[in-house]
């Protein structure tokens, strides 16, 4: 079973306690009424879906219940790192696929 490090529990916990929460760092526009439909649709519906490292929201739903962010490799399903919600995306772009977490 895949283990995920919960930054709030401070421990590696089994994957089935977690839920995926979509792409991380998608900021809601400050003034939605100032946007045209295309820009609003871009915010609502369009996500990056990269092949490789992706920043994602995860929730430790059957644990501490908290949302946090994780950098996950979408090719190998390996979690490179996890960090509390609200913190900027750590610079792990240099971490090559196949390097140990």
């Amino acid at each position, binding site marked *: *079973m895949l283990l995920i490090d919960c930054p*709030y*529990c*401070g*421990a590696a*916990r*089994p994957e*089935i*306690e977690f839920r995926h929460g979509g792409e991380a760092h998608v900021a809601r526009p400050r003034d939605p009424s100032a946007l045209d439909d295309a820009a609003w649709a871009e915010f609502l519906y369009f996500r990056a879906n990269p092949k490789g490292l992706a920043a994602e929201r995860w929730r430790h739903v*059957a*644990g*501490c*219940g*908290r949302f946090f962010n994780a950098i996950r490799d979408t090719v190998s399903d390996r979690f490179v790192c996890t960090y509390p919600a609200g913190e900027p995306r750590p610079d792990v772009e240099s971490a090559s696929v196949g390097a140990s977490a």
Partner: protein
Amino acid sequence: MPSVMTKPVARPRGPLDGRALPRGEDFRLAVSPAAGRILLRGDAAVAARASAAFGAPLPTRSGAVGARSDRAALWLGPDEWLLIAEGEAPAEIIAPLSAALADRAHSLVDVSQRQIGLDVVGPNAARALTAGCPLDLSLAAFPVGTATRTLLAKSEIVLWRRAPEHFRVEVWRSFADYVASYLSEAARRAPRAGGFA
């Protein structure tokens, strides 16, 4: 029929009332005594003040339990605690807490009837729980005095190790029958006592 209506005494019916639970040497399952259960949410300052008002320390370390006599505070999240007071009415716990926390943002929710406690006892207790719980329940990884929210098969539970061979499972009452059946069956199929180093 009496001519004067008398006030009925509220005695909640338990989800496992009248049900035969395993009472073996290696594995025993019993419904825990009635308790007041409160979910407290708030920041670190709330926790510090609540510790004094509740009578048991609210832990700040993940998975820790602050217990004193028959009161216990279980860490569920960085701003969430489950307070259990055996044999007490929830109002008796809430009153001093809300007085002590009056001027700070917090939430106190009475969940006494939402869930029941199950005492899972015996040399086979950890083995039976492991049949459905993904955590490592060895004494080294999950020592006495550890509590966490986790899963037991398809049900969310709060698991608290009170002694090496005594676990307390807090389960929502609609899942109680499922969890009791699952543990009974797991224990029946794992007759070998002990098991974890």
